[in-house]
């Protein structure tokens, strides 16, 4: 014992080589733990999974609650804030009430991101879904922003009969059989009923539209990258298939390390292949800005090589991250930006600008639309019955929204399919044209 104490007191040198390598190994483990702790920390992670607390029928509370689960920490905040504004705007228009004032509606925005992760966090998303399932007054869940997050939330809410309407999830496998993994989408619906609908067109449309647009912009040789996430890889794969089908030459397709400090080596390799266009399937938070910078850094100027990405990069945060190199960056979007809407959409856009004195980002109109659909469903049920509200929302037909008249199909997908192409010009995204998915 005494000897041991003395040993630990000599604080320097004298360690044999073996000890060194063992120490190095131990430190690896320690550092890995530090990283997982930093991305997994969440205050509510322990909330009890409430699969059994189905609030069926007759609690007859006159106050119903709607929550949203969106990333409000990190660089998604700018985008999320305008979605939340859209939701609040929709609720304000009905004075936060439904069924002629008999039911009061409460709204609470939840955050599914953590500062340490800088983007959505699986533990936090699970905690949010569990919280919603456990609270009998919560009847609808608006979200998520990231498709990977939806994968976690849908099954939890499915068992609790809570309807989930997403303003932004575009991964096809969440709803469409045969478009994702073999067992999708059924694994997300343990109760064999559908509880998830989305008001945005899915990526099987957007990936096709992007490839068509790339061709019409004059690209012949394309290189495809993705961020190795559900959303990013999914849309890159569809772009890949479509590109081959419509006669573009695909020079390569690989995943990037989203945490790398730079991509100069990768971009040097791509430059040597001489592409006309680089497609990046992924989100801004997975280093899209650095990717664009390094493409320009190794000499692929924007008049020679176009860079294109999906709606996950269609936000101001991308321009902030890429700086002047963002100039000329193309982004597709599963819909039409608020500014370009017509009819009811135009009225909404004007109202939004007066109310919040700011420009809505891409998904704000979908946030509004999602909230409207939920309120519409509650109006048909008029009591605290989760299952009935779920069925009412899922059965939405010929809904006159600000994006036009549309319905949910049997899978919960919107019948709308209009896409738009946008480009960064003078530090802002600007609408170029409406593009077709077919």
């Amino acid at each position, binding site marked *: 014992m005494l000897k041991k104490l003395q040993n630990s007191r000599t604080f320097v040198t004298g360690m044999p080589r073996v000890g060194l390598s063992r120490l190095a190994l131990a430190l690896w483990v320690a550092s890995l733990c530090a990283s997982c702790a930093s991305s997994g920390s969440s205050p509510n992670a322990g909330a009890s999974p409430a699969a059994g607390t189905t609030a069926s029928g007759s609690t007859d509370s006159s106050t119903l609650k709607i929550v949203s689960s969106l990333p409000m920490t990190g*660089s998604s905040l700018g985008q999320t804030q305008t979605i939340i504004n859209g939701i609040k705007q929709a609720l304000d228009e009905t004075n936060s009430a439904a069924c002629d004032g008999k039911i009061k509606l409460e709204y609470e925005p939840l955050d599914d991101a953590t500062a340490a992760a800088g983007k959505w966090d699986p533990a936090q998303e699970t905690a949010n879904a569990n919280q919603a399932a456990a609270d009998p007054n919560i009847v609808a869940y608006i979200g998520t922003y990231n498709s990977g997050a939806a994968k976690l939330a849908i099954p939890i809410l499915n068992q609790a009969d809570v309807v989930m309407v997403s303003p932004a999830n575009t991964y096809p496998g969440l709803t469409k059989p045969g478009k994702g993994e073999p067992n999708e989408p059924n694994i997300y619906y343990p109760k064999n009923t559908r509880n998830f609908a989305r008001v945005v067109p899915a990526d099987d449309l957007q990936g096709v539209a992007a490839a068509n647009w790339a061709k019409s912009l004059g690209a012949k040789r394309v290189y495809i990258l993705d961020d190795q996430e559900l959303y990013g890889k999914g849309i890159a794969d569809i772009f890949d298939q479509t590109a081959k089908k419509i006669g573009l030459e695909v020079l390569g397709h690989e995943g990037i390390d989203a945490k790398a400090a730079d991509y100069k080596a990768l971009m040097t*390799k791509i430059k040597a292949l001489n592409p006309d266009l680089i497609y990046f399937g992924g989100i801004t938070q997975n280093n899209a800005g650095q990717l664009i910078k390094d493409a320009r850094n190794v000499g692929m100027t924007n008049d020679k090589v176009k860079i294109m990405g999906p709606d996950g990069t269609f936000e101001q945060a991308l321009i902030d991250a890429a700086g002047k190199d963002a100039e000329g960056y193309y982004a597709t979007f599963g819909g039409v930006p608020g500014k370009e809407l017509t009819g009811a959409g135009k009225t909404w856009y004007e109202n939004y600008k007066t109310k919040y004195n700011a420009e809505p980002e891409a998904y704000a109109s979908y946030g509004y639309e999602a909230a409207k659909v939920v309120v519409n469903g509650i109006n048909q049920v008029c009591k605290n019955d989760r299952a009935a509200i779920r069925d009412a929302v899922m059965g939405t037909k010929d809904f006159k929204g600000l994006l036009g008249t549309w319905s949910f199909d049997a899978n919960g997908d919107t019948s709308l399919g209009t896409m738009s192409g946008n480009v960064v010009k003078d530090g802002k995204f600007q609408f170029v044209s409406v593009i077709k998915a077919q």
Partner: protein
Amino acid sequence: MKRWQRILLYLAVAYVVLLLGPIAGFDLPRIVGAIAQSPEVLIQQLLVGLINGAIIAIIALGYTLVYGIIELINFAHGDLYMLGAFASLTVINLFGLEDGASLATAIVPMLLALVIAGLFCGGLNLLTERYAYRPLRNSSRLAPLISAIGVSFIFQNLGLFWGGLKSFIPGMGNNAAAPKTFPDLLPRTDLLQALGIQTSVAFTVKDLVVLVVAAVLMVGLHLFVQYTRPGKAMRATAQNPMAARIMGINVDQIIALTFVLGGILAGSAGLLVALYNNTVVFTMGFTAGLRAFTAAVLGGIGNIIGAMLGGVLIGVLSALSDQYLSSRWTNAWVFAVLVIILAFRPGGLLGENVQEKV
């Protein structure tokens, strides 16, 4: 090494080789073909790897210095470098410099940023040593290590807070956690073309500056440790602190000096990386720190030349993997090489040279 440990290590090596070998093995003809077809691409990637490696090496020096003297892996070092980048961004912003500012107007702010970031990180590291490590110096080895991880979290959150100061510092963007753009101040002019050499290999002024600054820092540190009185005192302390104390060396002061030096290196690295990659973000310290720490271990932790060698090796390895294999596998390759080298040389590549008794 005990027999079972050796067996375990060889098993690990065999596992890695079996796992990754086929990926390279089946591809070997293709890779050789690709190199033969365009050797210029190989040269270009070696250059990219060398520059990235030089950057990793500077950060690795901070790990190696501190480990060499008190056998502590200073996990906060990566995050200290991140704060150095933030300090540089702040200075550059206060001068109102923007993309493409001419070198003449940018040179003074850049030098000032170098000095301020160096002093800031040096001072911060000094405080860290005084309040987070020194009180734990005589406790078990694990205590200062955990303290270092704690400091790393504090630094990360400091970076997050700093990124939110947009009302004071214009370049901080819309959002605290978002990556910030660092103005592109070094020209992207191609040196080889300017010299009239017809080749597709690009070597810009920017690359040259990074290489030169990195080289100056590394050579400077080496000379300092080898040939100055405080440098000698550092080496003496590293070898045997008790004996050094008996010989009249103020060991506490020398350790503090080491931390200041490490901090200055971290600050310079922060500015350099920001200038090279043009991005500053509060999470950049973790990834860079991990790579630099790997480089330090690879080269033989505690050994200054080893850290440089390890950094360059990792940089070149990643560049080649990105080019000839897939970027999906790059990290796997880097760590596979680390495991293999540690299996046969547990002290790292140049590890034997540390701590020789005179």
